[in-house]
């Protein structure tokens, strides 16, 4: 480095810098949880229920305890006070949650295939797996409840939860909906359903827990996403002081929402390490991953929607049922609650009402997955809008263009009833963004080409969807910035890295605020000791909240440095400034921050939530004889607020879209009528290979968020939100000449063939035209 006193540095935010994470990862030098070994470590294997619903009369572990290499086998009755050790929820509580929280091992009843009933600990993982097969249970099978919309008399999962309805969320806005319906020219009414699918990260979960007798401290390797919350929960369940628990985040092979929540294993493995005083390691296999990691998405959403002849949207009513699975897990009712919040979308309704019910089912519990509830609500609303457009004989984008909230109406506030926070859509230009997307897609040309191909007998469709991505949920994030003796700076953050590129993007933000080169800044998100609290990596909040906390901490660091620097230089505080890595006086004397040993911590707090606008276009062709749907093109345009690193933003948007297209076309966590999961390997749960994906074309605009110091609105989820809706509308458009109505996802070949055969029975209420009032 030169010692020039005045340096001009170009800001690094906005530059497409390749990631600092990559070098280790491309060399195979990453350190994922499975790569960590401890001397004397034991290996745990979870024994899981093989039936969906049963009274658990006894768990027989004797034979397994006698098996070679086995150290111990534990069932529910072996853990003292287990009935009180219920995993708490972190977000979105509901009315009857207290009856439906999960204990880490089943006690007297099992409620889904995959529910843990025992744990085997052995000296190697092969022997643990052998012994696990010798654990067996006496069960009295009960009829499973698998219906998201159960009739009266359906089997109850919990006696204290009538009708299996564990929570209900309602919103209401504006004018009376019935009155709006009476005065409508067009009214459509349809019931849509979204199938169960989820994240399937490439790395299954794993944990390695060790208890140190000397210090009395428990260390757990493997947690991610919400480490500080998980630390508090674990300390509470183990009855340890929180400062006795250290959670360490290794490299993580994909998160996408489900990974990193507190699961039964997050208690069991540390508990065993404390009991046995030996390190205990658990590595989930892929089958377990499919029945143990949160599922998501499964909702039935009924929509009635009213409009005028000119396309003016008036109001809607929607009722949703979310198949929540067997227990209320840490993300509570976020999925149905967000579905309700996102039903209105970017349109100025004169009135609406929504009601979403969380329904317990004998399936793997359901939690958040990239775009939770937002994907499902967008699917139902945008499908209904296309039905309205069809009734009106209007081109679908034109219906949206006529209705999208205009930029001069922003910020646009939607009150949603007593006790609910209003929704505020604060910035953007929604109609212009949609037009930009349609131009990029060459929409008019697409329609011409479609007409020509239809002439040739092809089934080709174009689908459009508009939506909001809700990002940047508070309440806070912490950061601590240290000026290191070697002249570098370390930013400690409470957010997590699940593979997004957090270390690179946050380093860019911190470097700019400090006024130093980005290669002198390092971001550390690794453990719960380095920073006292954090909220975590979800809701597209890592860059906006983590970055804002770093900016505050950097400003505070400069204050500290000015005071100390002035002291060292023998001048008043007001006579010095911080220039990059030095405190300097007006006459050129200086002292390096590295020599001052300063650090500062800060907390960024905000209750602001960003609703950023996005839109998507899908072009599909359907092979009628086989039912195969091919997505030929997929384009999305999103308002990311501020693209801190365009390379990473593009990766998030394109990758999110690819993941969503897999969900729309291939992936299905199906069950048989006895509650047996049918997708338990990558041969049944088909995530897309590169052969099934089009080249995704993502673009973005930047209307900075007013809710955080970075201006970012988030990019992690935007790409996935419109996928299901745009593909559904495109499939519906392709098959419009066949007279079918598309109501249900996924768009697998067998489902499409069933649709064309007419065996996807229409619901009782048909789209109908009502006279002008």
């Amino acid at each position, binding site marked *: 480095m030169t010692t020039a006193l005045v340096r001009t540095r170009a800001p690094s935010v906005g530059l497409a810098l390749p990631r600092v994470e990559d070098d280790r990862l491309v060399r195979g030098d*990453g350190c994922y949880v499975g790569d960590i070994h401890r001397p004397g470590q034991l290996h745990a294997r979870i024994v899981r229920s093989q039936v969906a619903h049963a009274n658990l009369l006894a768990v027989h572990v004797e034979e397994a305890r006698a098996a070679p290499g086995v150290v111990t086998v534990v069932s529910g009755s072996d853990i003292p006070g287990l009935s009180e050790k219920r995993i708490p929820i972190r977000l979105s509580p509901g009315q009857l949650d207290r009856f439906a929280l999960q204990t880490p091992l089943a006690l007297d009843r099992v409620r889904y295939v995959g529910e843990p009933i025992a744990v085997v600990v052995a*000296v190697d993982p*092969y*022997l643990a797996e052998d012994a696990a097969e010798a654990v067996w249970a006496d069960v009295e099978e009960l009829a499973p409840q698998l219906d998201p919309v159960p009739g009266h008399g359906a089997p109850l999962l919990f006696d204290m939860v009538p009708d299996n309805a564990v929570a209900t969320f309602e919103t209401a806005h504006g004018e009376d909906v019935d009155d709006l319906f009476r005065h409508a020219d067009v009214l459509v009414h349809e019931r849509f359903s979204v199938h169960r699918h989820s994240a399937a990260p*490439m790395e299954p979960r794993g944990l390695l827990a060790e208890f140190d007798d000397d210090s009395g401290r428990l260390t757990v390797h493997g947690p991610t996403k919400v480490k500080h919350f998980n630390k508090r929960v674990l300390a509470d369940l183990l009855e340890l002081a929180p400062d006795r628990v250290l959670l360490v985040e290794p490299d993580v092979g994909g998160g996408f929402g489900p990974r990193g929540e507190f699961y039964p294993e997050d208690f069991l493995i540390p508990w065993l390490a404390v009991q046995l005083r030996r390190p205990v390691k658990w590595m989930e296999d892929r089958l377990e991953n499919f029945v143990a990691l949160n599922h998501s998405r499964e909702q039935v959403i009924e929509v009635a929607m009213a409009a005028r002849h000119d396309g003016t949207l008036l109001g809607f009513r929607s009722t949703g049922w979310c198949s929540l699975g067997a227990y209320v897990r840490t993300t509570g009712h976020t999925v149905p609650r967000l579905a309700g919040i996102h039903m209105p979308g970017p349109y100025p309704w004169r009135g609406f009402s929504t009601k979403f019910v969380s329904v317990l089912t004998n399936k793997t519990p359901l939690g958040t997955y990239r775009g939770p509830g937002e994907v499902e609500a967008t699917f139902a609303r945008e499908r209904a809008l296309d039905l309205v457009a069809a009734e009106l004989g209007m081109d679908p984008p034109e219906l949206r263009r006529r209705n999208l909230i205009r930029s001069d109406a922003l910020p646009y506030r939607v009150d949603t009833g007593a006790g609910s926070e209003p929704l505020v859509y604060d910035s953007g230009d929604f109609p212009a963004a949609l037009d930009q997307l349609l131009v990029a897609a060459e929409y008019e040309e697409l329609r011409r080409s479609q007409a020509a191909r239809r002439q040739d007998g092809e089934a080709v469709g174009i689908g459009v969807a508009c939506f909001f991505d809700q990002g940047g949920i508070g309440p806070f994030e912490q950061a601590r910035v240290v000026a290191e003796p070697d002249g570098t700076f370390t930013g400690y953050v409470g957010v997590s890295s699940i593979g997004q590129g957090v270390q690179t993007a946050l380093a860019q933000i911190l470097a700019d605020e400090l006024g130093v080169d980005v290669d002198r800044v390092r971001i550390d998100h690794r453990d719960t000791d380095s920073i006292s609290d954090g909220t975590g990596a979800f809701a597209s909040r890592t860059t906006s909240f983590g970055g804002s906390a770093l900016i505050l901490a950097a400003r505070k660091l400069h204050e500290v440095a000015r005071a100390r620097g002035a002291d060292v230089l023998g001048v008043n505080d007001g006579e010095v400034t911080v220039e990059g890595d030095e405190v300097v006086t007006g006459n050129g004397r200086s002292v390096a921050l590295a020599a001052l040993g300063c650090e500062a911590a800060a907390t960024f707090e905000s209750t602001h939530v960003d609703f950023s606008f996005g839109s998507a276009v899908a072009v599909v062709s359907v092979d009628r004889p086989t039912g195969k749907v091919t997505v030929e093109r997929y384009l999305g345009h999103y308002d990311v607020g501020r693209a801190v690193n365009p390379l990473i933003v*593009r990766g998030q948007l394109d*990758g999110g879209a690819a993941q969503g297209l897999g969900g729309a076309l291939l992936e299905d966590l199906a069950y048989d009528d006895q509650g047996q999961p049918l997708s338990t*390997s990558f041969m049944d749960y088909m995530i897309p290979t590169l052969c099934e994906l089009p080249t*995704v074309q993502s673009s973005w605009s930047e209307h900075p968020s007013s809710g955080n110091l970075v201006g970012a609105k988030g990019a992690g989820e935007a790409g996935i939100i419109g996928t299901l809706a745009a593909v559904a509308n495109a499939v519906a458009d392709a098959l419009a000449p066949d007279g079918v109505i598309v109501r249900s996802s996924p768009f697998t070949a067998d489902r499409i063939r069933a649709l064309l055969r007419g065996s996807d029975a229409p619901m009782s209420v048909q789209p109908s035209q009502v006279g002008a009032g």
Partner: protein
Amino acid sequence: MGAEMVSPPRSAPTRAPEEPGEPEGPDELADVSFSLNGSMTALRVPVRWTLADVLRERAGATGTHLGCEHGVCGACTVLVDDQPVRSCLMLGVQADGSSVRTIEGVAASDGLHPLQRTFHEQHALQCGYCTPGFIMLALGLLEREPDASQERIRDVLSSNLCRCTGYAPIVRAVMAAQAEMRR
């Protein structure tokens, strides 16, 4: 607490921290020796252990990752006698006498291999878990078929799964590396 857990052992058996020793169980063991990234490696391993487990647990080559353990995802792809194989579908003892190459042996002493560098430049990895498998798969292809067409490259790369990127940057990275390797 169960009766059998009242008196947990208070100290762990002593083992070297870096290299776990031979398994304690009753498994039948066999000697296996193979060249690992050019170095001869001799191990005594349980006959039922997969090559992936032998590499990861006994040879310290943890860059080879396990995503499904039944041969679908390709995260565990390594080169055995220069052919890409799923190391989760092969027993360790079957590698006896072979040349095994893993991600740890790809970089030259003076820097990254072109594939490693282009994956970085093209943002062809996010979480990085599938990356070693993709690089080994592409390396096996480009060494044997330096002039592979884009269609051929896409066909081969469709053997492995990635959940983060949507694959387009992976294809770009492999094409860019191919151009560099042919020079």
